[in-house]
């Protein structure tokens, strides 16, 4: 049976709109059914359903980290309240000379937010460990997650500065009494959420389905080259 254009196009779409899954075997199964007597309409319907299911599964994989990050970021005022004057007190830097005083001044502003994100990451990992969803966790991955979260936090904060376009806000406001304050309560959730989400995705960079897809490709190569 010679496949028509619709079937060829549908097979191509199925194998390329995979959302991290490997649809080669699925595509083969559908073709086998088509050759066995199923209609083109049935084939196209199956392909459409498979693509939609693939997209839903992909979204489902990222929804948990996203919801957790957003929910965790709402706890920041509590963290701020608990950590008041516990991180770097202004008295610590005024006695120091430049550049240490400036460095500590900036660190004093960023540290509560960074430690909050990292603590959130730790909580998420503990939850994953409890659910036994963490297969392996190297020190490289941990360092990558921590550094990515810091970079994303700073970038998202600067982006938020730009977005807010408040002339009263400048980089010096990244201080304990400045940007990360209750006044910006709703907007600070954005960099915190992005930062935590980036950390989680960096730490667990290969979604299970993508990892499986790689394993499948390797298997396929070994089958093709005996």
């Amino acid at each position, binding site marked *: 049976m010679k496949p028509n254009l619709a079937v060829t196009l549908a097979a191509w779409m199925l194998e390329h709109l995979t959302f991290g899954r490997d649809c080669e075997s699925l*595509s*083969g*199964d559908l*073709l086998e059914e088509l050759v066995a007597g199923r209609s083109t309409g049935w084939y196209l319907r199956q392909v459409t*359903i498979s693509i939609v299911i693939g997209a839903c599964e992909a979204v489902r994989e990222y929804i948990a980290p996203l919801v957790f990050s957003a929910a965790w970021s709402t706890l920041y005022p509590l963290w701020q309240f608990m950590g008041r004057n516990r991180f770097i007190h202004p008295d610590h830097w005024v006695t120091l000379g430049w550049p240490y005083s400036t460095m500590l001044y900036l660190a004093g502003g960023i540290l509560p937010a960074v430690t909050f994100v990292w603590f959130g990451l730790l909580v998420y990992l503990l939850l994953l460990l409890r659910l036994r969803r963490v297969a392996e966790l190297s020190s490289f991955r941990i360092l990558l997650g921590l550094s990515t979260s810091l970079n994303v936090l700073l970038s998202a904060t600067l982006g938020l500065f730009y977005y807010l376009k408040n002339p009263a806000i400048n980089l010096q406001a990244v201080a304990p009494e400045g940007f990360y304050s209750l006044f910006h309560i709703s907007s600070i959730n954005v960099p915190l959420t992005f930062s935590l989400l980036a950390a989680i995705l960096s730490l667990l960079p290969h979604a299970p389905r993508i990892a499986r897809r790689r394993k499948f490709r390797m298997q*396929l190569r070994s*089958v093709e080259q005996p």
Partner: protein
Amino acid sequence: MRDHNFLGEFELMLLLTLIRLGDEAYGVPLSRELALMRGRDVSVGSVYASLDRLELKGLVESSLGEATPERGGRAKRYFRVTEQGLRAVHDTRKVLSRLWKSLPSVKEDPA
């Protein structure tokens, strides 16, 4: 606390069909057998999505088979139930059996 892996309805059906088919279980016979047992058509995509989830949980494992011309040269993916999968089926069966014991009987319709 013991770690339980209770199965959903479709997952349970899928695992039972895999056990029933044995070594010949790949997408096409699996979907046909499931459709036959359920009495309605099954989407092959949903079968694969469930198998993916079961494989991630370690209840199923897969290996690549031969590629045939009618499949457009695409390899078959054979699935088999793991030891953990078999245990999950037994655990689910035990729980369901216990729950079914308290199922009240339905009165016969006099009409």
